[in-house]
Structures are given as structure tokens and as C-alpha cells.
């Protein structure tokens, strides 16, 4: 069915507007979970932003926001836009979740407040000071090893290998079975998407990965002093009950690895594509942390999350009923020209504060400091040791309903 766009604001993007829901919100026939979209989301992001402050995606029958102001607003009003009905398309009020809901990601205040406080303390700035030197030394060693090889795949050998060399140890995981970590995270992030092939296949194959993760979250399997043991210690302090601790460890394993893999991968891809920015980084390695942050804004490794309206609400003049899912395009907000000057430029000295690549508000990425630490020390090591990053083969994209990143990025490093 094709109807006229009654608002008349969808112009300039012929073919994008396909209809209109009763409130005058423009309906678009864009599928943000299709392979073509993953290959190049930017023209569609622009169409979504320009169609209006709120749009309706007819294919999945869901509302969406793609401009910075509205994405920020939805993220920062958790009472109106709740997470407890799931932060994917699936509505937990209508459909059984594919796994027991997260105690932090898929929870609302006041329940969320208590569990969030536990993870915030476990991953606090003070804890980062303690792990910093170890993470930095591992990054230096990794860059030395890769320089010796010269040419390699920056996804498998760097973006995956480095986080896998530091984060599981920091959590306190056993050595065996770690090969389940990335596949498990892949399922988690595919499962936020609609019931397409990616999601269905991922969930069908998830059983061994789920079994591994559930086992590793138990207290006996976590090394003393690690993040996992620190979470379990909060049971003794009375902050959480024993049954909650493994579920919070699960959150670290769900969201702590694939995200940083794609964040570091995004940064390497940026520096390889924009050698003048790598030159600036080399001339001032103290820019490493911001160069990583800007890559998060520029590529937005976590592209989307959903909320559910708890009441009838008006967003920038658009009426949305209670009980509706709203899709937030974090990646589109991070390149909204209403908020960012020259948004499609990767600029390692940009003032990035306020980007929504880690979300915003009470659910903002609780592991953001770990992500920044990993990104910073890796880019700083590259800045000091590497003269040039050259792409040396075909770039292949990886397809996931939520995560934006590459399957393969062949590069060659030239030593200083």
C-alpha cells in the first residue's frame, strides 16, 4: 500500500516516503536491518532525519527518531521511554524474551538504579587507574607483534585480538571456552533487531554460547580480583542478592567485547582511510583518546536501540500512543548537521562531548571507561610506533542487526 505523505516534509528523497500514519508522521519504506542498508546507511540516515522529527518505518511497523535532539530526548526520559519492555524490536509485554532479561539494560528505575550502581562501581574511574598500565603494556606488545608481521587483517588480528587479550582476563574468565565470547555477543546484538534472517539464525545457533556464558558467570569460575569477582563481592556487601550477580556478570560478557572490537575496528578504519588524521595523531599522540572517541561518533559501532512508550506522548509535535516501540538511530544522530559542524568529517580534534555513540542518560554504556581505555592505549601505541597505515586488500563488512563493523580489513603497517 502506498499513500500520500500528508505532512509534505518527506520531499527531496524521492522514493523514501511511502505513506503516513494517522497522526501525520511520515511513513518511510526504509529497512534499517537490511544488508543494503548496512553497506551504506548514510543516505538513508539523511532521509530519516530530513523526513521529520519522528518517522514511521512501515516495514517493521515502528516509530523512529534519527535527529540528535529527539534521540537525546528519548534517551534522557526513561520514565516515558522505558527499557523494561526490551531495547530491541521485540516487546517483552507481548513476546517471551529469547533469554532472561538483563537486570540493567532491560530494566527501569527503581530496579535499574541498584544494579546499575554495582556495575558503575566495578568499572569506575578509580578502577581504570588500576588496570591502565596493564592494558597499555598489552597494546604496546600487540603493536610490536603486528609491526613484525607487517601485513595482517586489522579486524581479526587487532580489533578482535587486542580486547580478547585484556578484557576476559580483567573479568577473571578461565582460558578455555573464550571462543564463545564473540559469537555470544553477536547473538545478543542481532537479537535486538526484527525477526529477520540474521536474528532467527543467530538465536537458533545460540545454545552452546549461552551455556558457556551462563557457566562462566558463576562465582566459582571467576578469578579473584577480576570484575566478575568484584560483582559477586557486592552480594556479601548486601547490595544485590546471590541470584543477581551472575546476571550482572552476563552483562559484561554480552556488551563488553564485541562493542570494543567494533570501536577499535572503527578507529583503525578511520585512520587508514584518513592518513592526514593519522599524521596529526602521530605528531601529538595525546590526541589518541579523542581520536578514538571521534571514531565512535563517526562510525557509531552500536547503531540502534529501542524504547517503549509508557504513556501517550508528544515528541516535537508528533503524537505517539502508549505501548509503542521507538527506534533510536544513534548513528544518524551522531552525524546530524543540526548538532555537528561538518558531520561527515573524521576530525580527531573535534569536541565530541555529547555524542550518543555510548548512549546517554541512565542507560549510557556502563563500560564506556573500559572502551575508552582500550581505544586510547591502542591508538597511542600506533601513533608512537607506526609511520603509516595502508589498506592492502578488499574491505568486507560484517552484518549485524545492531553493530556496525567490518568482517575483514587487510592493512599493512610501516614502522617509524
Amino acid at each position, binding site marked *: 500500500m502506498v499513500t500520500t505523505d500528508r505532512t509534505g516534509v518527506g520531499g527531496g528523497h524521492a522514493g523514501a516516503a511511502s505513506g503516513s500514519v494517522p497522526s501525520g508522521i511520515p511513513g518511510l519504506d526504509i529497512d534499517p536491518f537490511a544488508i543494503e542498508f548496512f553497506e551504506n546507511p548514510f543516505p538513508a540516515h539523511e532521509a530519516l532525519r530530513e523526513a521529520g522529527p519522528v518517522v514511521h518505518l512501515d516495514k517493521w511497523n515502528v516509530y523512529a527518531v534519527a535527529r540528535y535532539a529527539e534521540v537525546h530526548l528519548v534517551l534522557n526520559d526513561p520514565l516515558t521511554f522505558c527499557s523494561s519492555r526490551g531495547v530491541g524490536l521485540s516487546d517483552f509485554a507481548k513476546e517471551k524474551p529469547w533469554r532472561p532479561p538483563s537486570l540493567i539494560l532491560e530494566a527501569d528505575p527503581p530496579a535499574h538504579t541498584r544494579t546499575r*550502581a554495582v556495575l*558503575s*562501581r566495578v568499572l*569506575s*574511574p*578509580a*578502577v*581504570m*587507574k588500576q588496570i591502565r598500565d596493564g592494558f597499555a603494556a598489552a597494546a604496546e606488545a600487540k603493536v610490536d607483534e603486528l609491526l613484525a608481521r607487517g601485513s595482517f587483517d586489522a579486524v581479526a588480528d587487532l580489533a578482535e585480538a587486542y580486547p580478547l587479550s585484556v578484557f576476559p582476563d580483567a573479568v577473571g574468565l578461565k582460558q578455555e571456552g573464550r571462543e564463545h565470547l564473540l559469537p555470544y555477543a553477536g547473538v545478543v546484538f542481532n537479537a535486538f533487531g526484527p525477526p529477520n534472517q540474521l536474528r532467527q539464525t543467530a538465536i537458533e545457533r545460540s545454545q552452546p554460547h549461552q551455556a558457556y556464558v551462563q557457566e562462566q558467570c558463576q562465582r566459582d569460575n571467576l578469578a579473584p580480583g577480576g570484575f566478575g569477582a568484584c560483582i559477586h563481592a557486592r552480594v556479601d556487601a548486601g547490595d544485590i542478592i546471590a541470584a543477581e550477580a551472575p546476571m550482572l556478570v552476563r552483562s559484561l560478557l554480552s556488551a563488553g567485547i564485541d562493542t570494543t572490537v567494533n570501536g577499535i575496528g572503527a578507529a583503525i578504519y578511520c585512520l587508514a582511510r584518513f592518513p592526514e588524521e593519522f599524521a596529526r595523531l602521530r605528531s601529538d599522540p595525546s590526541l589518541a*583518546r579523542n581520536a578514538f*572517541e571521534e571514531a565512535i561518533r563517526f562510525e557509531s559501532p552500536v547503531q540502534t536501540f529501542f524504547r517503549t512508550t509508557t504513556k501517550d506522548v508528544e515528541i516535537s509535535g508528533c503524537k505517539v500512543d502508549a505501548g509503542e516501540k521507538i527506534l533510536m538511530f544513534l548513528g544518524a544522530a551522531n552525524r546530524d548537521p543540526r548538532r555537528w559542524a561538518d558531520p561527515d568529517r573524521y576530525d580527531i580534534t573535534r*569536541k565530541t*562531548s*555529547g*555524542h550518543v555513540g*555510548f548512549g*546517554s*542518560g*541512565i542507560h*549510557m554504556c*556502563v563500560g*564506556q*571507561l573500559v572502551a*575508552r581505555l582500550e581505544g586510547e592505549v591502542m591508538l597511542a601505541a600506533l601513533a608512537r610506533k607506526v609511520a603509516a597505515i595502508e589498506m592492502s586488500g578488499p574491505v568486507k563488512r560484517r552484518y549485524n542487526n545492531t553493530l556496525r563493523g567490518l568482517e575483514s580489513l587487510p592493512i599493512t603497517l610501516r614502522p617509524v
Partner: protein
Amino acid sequence: MPIITFIRSDNRSESIEARIGDSAMLAATRHGVDEIVAECGGNAMCATCHVYVDDNWISRLAAMSDEEDALLDGVAAERQPNSRLSCQIKIEQDLDGLVLRLPERQL
């Protein structure tokens, strides 16, 4: 609008007009006070908007939360009794004249 003065570690100062309801962090970043990094964008998560509140003002601010207290243990510069996170200082008219000193480093 209330005027807030930021004093850098080398004693250069800058007085800016802050919007009521904004945080002191947001007022600083809106006016290009680059010493306020604010990596997390004001969500009380990163401890990179650390300030030292002038002694005449410290008792006039709303008390800090347990979360802010814990975060201040992780600031890059030395934590002092008058340390606060500027994202947690909400600007009201009665803070007109507030003086905040900037630490040497946020990271």
C-alpha cells in the same frame, strides 16, 4: 543570567554567562572552556569535568550524591575537600558569582 568564573591552573580566568538549569559543565563547554573535557556528556560517569569549588561557595552548593563521591576518587588530578564534578552543579540564580578552579588535568 548568572555569571560563573572559571580560574585555570595558571590563574587565567574566564567569566561566562550560564543558563539557569544548565550544569556548570554544560555552561563551560558551551563557552569553549576546554579544560572541562566531559567525556560522558554530563551523565556522572567519567570524572573528566572535575573542578575545585571556591571556598566561599562550597557550602552553598547542593550536597553531592554517593555516586559523585565515588567518581571523585577516580579524578586524574588530586582530589581535595572542595572537589566536585561540574556536571552535577546545577546553575540557579543564587549561584551568580560562582567561582570554580580548574585542575591541571582531567585525564
